[in-house]
């Protein structure tokens, strides 16, 4: 085999091997690390997983934030204005966490409540994360069809 062909062969086989390995691992890693976002209505409808982690998005219901005095334990209600979900969280809340503002929490179901390990609020207070807005819009649409 002449050197040019040989070099090409090496390069091509390296690329094919790298792409193959990368593709396999990527699919594997993606499957392991994907989390879906659900609205309280979807959780209510049983769409969210019961055991594994997912994200819950919505608005922090006005007047729902309670703190166990002197500790970092907090609970609040996330709502899409049709269904509510009580969320428990131990830790420091982000600066933009406020009642009436949108929030995305990551965690899993524990009993009838959502145990959050992470709470994210948006940087910008005038704007709602699109996925939360979508979730609320969807809940609204679903709510309308179910309303008598």
């Amino acid at each position, binding site marked *: 085999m002449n*050197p*040019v062909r*040989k*070099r090409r062969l*090496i*390069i091509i086989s*390296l*690329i094919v091997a*790298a*792409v193959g390995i*990368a593709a396999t*691992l*990527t699919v594997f*890693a*993606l499957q*392991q*690390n*994907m*989390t*879906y*976002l659900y609205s309280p209505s979807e959780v209510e409808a049983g769409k969210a997983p019961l055991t594994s982690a997912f*994200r819950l998005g919505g608005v922090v219901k006005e007047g729902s934030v309670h*703190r166990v*005095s*002197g*500790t*970092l334990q907090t609970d609040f209600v996330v709502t899409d204005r049709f269904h509510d979900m009580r969320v428990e969280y131990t*830790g*420091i*809340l982000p*600066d*933009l966490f406020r009642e009436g503002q949108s929030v995305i929490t990551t965690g899993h179901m524990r009993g009838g409540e959502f145990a959050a390990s992470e709470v*994210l*609020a*948006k*940087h*910008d*207070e005038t*704007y709602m*994360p*699109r*996925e939360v807005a*979508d*979730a609320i819009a969807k809940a609204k649409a679903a709510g309308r069809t179910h309303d008598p």
Partner: protein
Amino acid sequence: MIPELGQLALILALLLSALQCALPIFGAWRNAKPLMATARSLVVGQFVFVALAFGILTYAFMVQDFSVAYVAQNSNLELPWWYRFSAVWGAHEGSLLLWVLILDVWTLAVAAFGGKLPEKFYARVLGVLGFIAFGFLLFSLATSNPFTRLIPAPMDGVDLNPVLQDPGLIMHPPVLYMGYVGFSVAFAFAIAALLGGELQSSWVRWSRPWTNVAWGFLSAGIVAGSWWAYSELGWGGWWFWDPVENASFMPWLVGTALIHAQAVTDKRGGLRAWTLLLAIFAFSLSLLGTFLVRSGVLTSVHSFAADPKRGVFILGFLAVVVGGSLLLYAGRARYVAGGKPFALASRETLILIGNLMLSVSAATVLLGTLYPLLGEALNIGRISVGPPYFGFLFMLLMTPLVLAMPFAPLSRWGKADVVIWRRALQRIVMLALIAGIIAFALGVHRWMGLLGVTASTYVIAGTAFYAIKRWKEAPRGRRYPLEMLGMLFGHFGVGVFIAGAILTRTLSIEQDVALSPGQVVHVGNYDFRFDGVGERHGPNWLAQQGTVEVSKNGTLVTVLHPQKRTYPRGQVQTEASIHPGVFGDLYVSLGDPLGPSTGAAGSSGAWAVRVYDKPFVRWIWAGGLLMMLGGFCAAADKRFRLRRSEEAQAHDPAGIPVSVIQPVQQQA
């Protein structure tokens, strides 16, 4: 009146950029010298008008002209002047103008220093840069005009987002943009070469310092962003695999591959087509980065802007630039491809392995970043891809690269020389194992931490092995040409970065605690005593300021003052207080007040406090800065500035004469 002049300047700049694109490229095609000669003056003219527009916008901020909507949105009467200055690029419209201004600075530099390039090539390079400027100026004027009036003018402006009121954010965007936009030069070179169907390795050599400088700036910009996130977001994290961070990281990965591939093309004439492809991708990813951050397409905790119209425009522009250049590449690459054969265990192979790993990791980062968007578009559901995805794949892909890294400088171009590998491998592995054992003895007991110490020592010892070998073998005065010194800095930087990243991850102690005044919390080897919270006034904020005394074995180490600032419009911003150190930071930030105030003046009830001990965290940024230094250092090498007649005698840092590559004949 003055803002209208800015608008006019932008329109004139748009017209000039259209000419700067059309005339020289047309001239090069028709071989019309007068047309090609217009390039230089058009570049200067365009620069003048863009700079004028930028100056006028800055002036509007300085005099607080709230009749300009952009100023009213991003400034107010209480904002100190230095933040008013940085507010010019604090949001979408102004940062776009900054983008174009920086592009023009790069173009001007190319025009000034590129006079020795062949006439047609020079004209085409400036023409391509003109096209990019045209796209961005059109974007600015059509969808995001910074000079739009707000009539009647409000009495006071809104505010600059408090998150952006930080010294780190004054520098972060300009430096990052210097990097993003700097890749446009390598891109313009690639397109000009493809347009002409001819590539000389001397042109690639001439473009190398530009790429290195751009890469150095990009490294610095990413470091600044990471440091800002660490000190400002109040979580003590330094990298989140957030889409906005990924947006700057992808061009960096491809850029790293590019500077190495360019070295091969320069020295050996090989990997030419690959180098061109990388140049196209590096710039395309920079554009994509701008698109991702600025279109609001991402629902990231980072994004400030949200306007789909802009997204559609950038997407179209991206399609034209990426699609057009890839089409051109497909049609013309065979004319410019070429190179010499090389042995399996040669330096080319090792660089190629590194290139592959870097490109594949850029692709996996791209996939992870775009997957949520794809998922939404294909109606799979609203997905987010967690940081472990990126972390896992990145570590995996970087392992072969790190393993190969010390051997690339030791290998020879073209030929295999395995003897030196064996000698180096023995010593490097021995040193790495010794370092691992010492780390274990010092109390690093998690395998991840030990792996970090070993890998870091492996890279640093490997790089040092080459530096010492070179010291012994090369004649005095020619031991470390700047280009090689840059490589050494860069590779040392990687070693330092690995140590910082992995040790911070494994050794950090993070505690969120509820503290009442007088209460002590023990974190790491330190005692943090919380002495309550008082009030403090800043130029445009009111802060709840905590006092935390940190002591070690009874001796006072430092007193930290974390703040919770409230800005005029009620936005709350956490300011962490950090005690920096070479071997670790002590980091305290305030959460929320937890209990009822005791009512006593100057003190209050319990607060949520975040207390971190972060060993070696500075090494992360030190590593990044070393890489930046390496990029700048290499770019300063005289070898890149020689005139063509002298090129044949130019020295090669590896001690092998430069091969002069004959241009591939263009076929009719």
